[in-house]
C-alpha cells in the first residue's frame, strides 16, 4: 500500500482514480488545485505524487518545480501533450516518470509500482548483469562480453525494460504502453523492428536467438543463455 497524492482539476478523473486506487488498497489524497496540492505534498510527504499539468490556478510544471525545490517526493506527471520536447522538459524539471492521457487505472498503478520499486531498491535496478550482457540503467549504457553496445534511445529502453523482468514473457501491448507510452495505439511492427535491431546488435537473429526469445502470440522475453 502506498500513500498517493493526486493533483487533478478534472472532477471525474479525480474521483474515479481516487476510488479505483483506494479499492486497490492505497491511501489517496486528491486535490483539485496546484497550491492545495503543493501544500499537502510538503506537509504530508506522500509516497508518490500524481500531478496533472492543466491546473486552474497555476501551471503544473511550476508546481513540479516548487515541489522539487524543497522535496524529493517522487512525482509522476500526467500530461495530455505527447511531444518529445514536452516530455524531456518535464523530466528535466524534476519529474520521475510520466503518463500520457488518456491512461487507465491499471497503467497508472503499474507506473506507480515501478517507480516505488526503483526507489526502494536503487542498487538492484542500477546495473543488471545477464550472462555477458551488462545494462547500466542510470548511466544508460549497455555492453556485451565487455564490448559497449551502440544502442538507440528506444533500443536501450526496450532492453532495460526486458532486463527488469528476466525470463518473464512481456506482451507487445505492455511494451507499447511502458516503453513507447502508447497503451492504446502503436503498431506491433514498431516493436518488431526495434527487436530486430536489438538482436542484430546482440549478435543474434530470430532464427538463432540467444538473449532475446520471441514467444509466438504471447510476447518476448530476455533470458540468460549461459544459465
Amino acid at each position: 500500500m502506498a500513500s498517493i497524492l493526486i493533483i487533478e482539476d478534472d472532477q471525474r478523473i479525480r474521483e474515479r482514480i481516487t476510488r479505483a486506487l483506494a479499492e486497490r488498497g492505497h491511501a489517496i489524497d486528491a486535490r483539485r488545485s496546484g497550491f492545495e496540492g503543493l501544500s499537502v505534498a510538503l506537509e504530508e510527504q506522500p509516497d508518490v505524487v500524481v500531478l496533472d499539468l492543466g491546473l486552474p490556478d497555476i501551471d503544473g510544471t511550476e508546481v513540479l518545480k516548487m515541489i522539487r525545490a524543497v522535496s524529493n517526493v517522487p512525482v509522476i506527471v500526467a500530461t495530455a501533450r505527447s511531444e518529445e520536447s514536452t516530455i524531456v522538459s518535464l523530466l528535466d524539471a524534476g519529474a520521475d516518470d510520466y503518463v500520457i492521457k488518456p491512461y487507465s487505472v491499471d497503467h497508472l498503478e503499474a507506473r506507480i509500482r515501478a517507480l516505488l520499486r526503483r526507489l526502494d531498491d536503487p542498487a538492484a535496478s542500477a546495473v543488471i548483469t545477464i550472462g555477458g550482457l551488462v545494462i547500466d540503467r542510470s548511466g544508460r549504457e549497455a555492453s556485451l562480453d565487455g564490448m559497449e553496445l551502440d544502442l538507440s534511445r528506444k533500443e536501450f529502453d526496450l532492453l532495460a525494460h526486458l532486463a527488469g523482468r528476466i525470463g518473464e514473457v512481456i506482451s507487445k501491448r505492455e511494451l507499447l504502453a511502458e516503453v513507447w507510452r502508447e497503451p492504446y495505439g502503436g503498431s506491433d511492427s514498431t516493436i518488431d523492428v526495434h527487436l530486430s535491431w536489438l538482436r542484430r546488435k546482440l549478435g543474434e537473429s530470430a532464427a538463432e536467438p540467444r538473449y532475446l526469445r520471441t514467444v509466438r502470440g504471447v510476447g518476448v522475453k530476455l533470458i540468460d543463455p549461459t544459465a
Partner: protein
Amino acid sequence: MRRRLALQAVAVTSLIVLSFVVPLGILASRQARDRALSVAEREAQSIATAIAVATSFSEPGVTTSTARSVFDAFGRPDDTSIHLADGQIIGIGSPDDPDVAVARGGSAFTAKTNDGAAVLIPILSGGQTAVVRVAVSQAQLSKGVKAAWSVLAGLAIALLGIAVFAADRLGRSVIDPVERLRSAAVALGTGDLATRVEPGGPPEIVEVAHTFNDLAERLGDLLQEEREAAADLSHGLRTPLTALRLQVEGMEGGHIRDGLLDDVSLVENAADRVIFEARTRGSDAPRRTDLAAITQARASFWEPLASDQERSMTTRLDATKLWVSATETDVTTILDTLIENVFAHTDPGTPFAISVTEDGTLTVADGGSGFEATSARRGRSGGGSTGLGLDIVGRIARHNDAHFDIGASSLGGAEVSIAFKLRP
C-alpha cells in the same frame, strides 16, 4: 526583362547617335571638299597673279615663255594647266575643254568634271584671255572623309556599348530585387514559410519586399497559432477521454463494458489522427526533401526485421539524390506507414520491393494477397486492415501535391505509388 531593357537602350541610343553622327559625317565631307577646292583656288589664283605681274613688265598678252616660267615655278604638272589665247596649253589639258571656253569669256568659276572638279581663272592681258585651270581629283575632294566616318562610327558603337552596359546595370538594380522577390514567392508558395527576402532596389520594390516579409511572418504566425490550437485540442480532447475511459473501466465487467472500451480506444485513435494531421499541416519545415536519401535510410531501418522474417527486400534507387516537394517528416511517415503495412498485412517470408524513379515516384510493392482499390478510404479496406494507414498516406500525399495510387504489383500483391513533384 534585362534583354528588353538593353534593346530599348540600343534603340534610343541609336536614334540619338544617328541624329548626331549623320550630320557630322556630311559636314566632314563638305569640309574636305571645301578644303581641297580652296587649295586649288589659291594655287590657280597664285599662278594667275604671277602671270599678270610678269606680263605687266613685258609686251601685252601672255607669252608662252612667261606662262612656262610661271608654270614651272608654281604649277603642279598633274593638276595644273595654262591655256593661252592662241590655244597653246602649258601642262596637261584638252584644247576642247568647254569649261575653258566659258572661262575665256572672263568668268572665274569652279566646274564639276568627270574626275572631280576644276578651278578656272581667266587672265586678261593685251585684249587676250588666257585661262589657268587647276584640277581637283575625287580623291582630293574626299580626302580624310573615310577616316572621319570611321571615327564617327567607332564613337557610335562605343556609345551604343556604353548605353547597353549602363542599361544592363540599371536593369539589374531593378531586376535582381524582383528576381529575389520571385524566388522567395515561389519558395513560400511551396510551403517554405521561413523564407524571407532582403529588401533592395527601387523604393517600390523595397516596399513590396517589406510587405512580402510581413505577409510571410503573418502566415507563420497563423500556422503557429494553428499548431498551438492543435496542442490545446490535444489537451482538450485527451482529458475528457481519460475521464471517459476511467468511467467505463469502473463499470461492471461484461460485453457492454468491453465494447465501450473498444469504442473509447477508437475515439482515442481518431483524436490522435486529428492531432497528427493538424500538426502536419502546421509544420513550417522546408518543403524540399531528398527522396532517395530518406528512402535509403528508412529501407536500412526496416531491413533487420525483413531479414528476421526471411523476407526478400529489394531497394532500387534510380538516382543518388532526388529532391522532391515534401517535408522530411511527411516522406518519412509515408515510407514507414507503407513498409509497416507490408509487415502487418503480409505473412513472414513475403517479398517486397521499394523503388524510387527519377520522375519522383516512390513505390512500395509486395507479394502478398493485395487489396482492392477502395483501401485508401477509411474503414473500407480488405485483408483485415482498417485502411487507416493508407488513408493517412493519401492525405499526406495530397497535402504535398503528390499523386497517390494503389493497385496490383508485379510481385503478385499490392502496390502503392506516390508521385511527388520534383523540386531541384
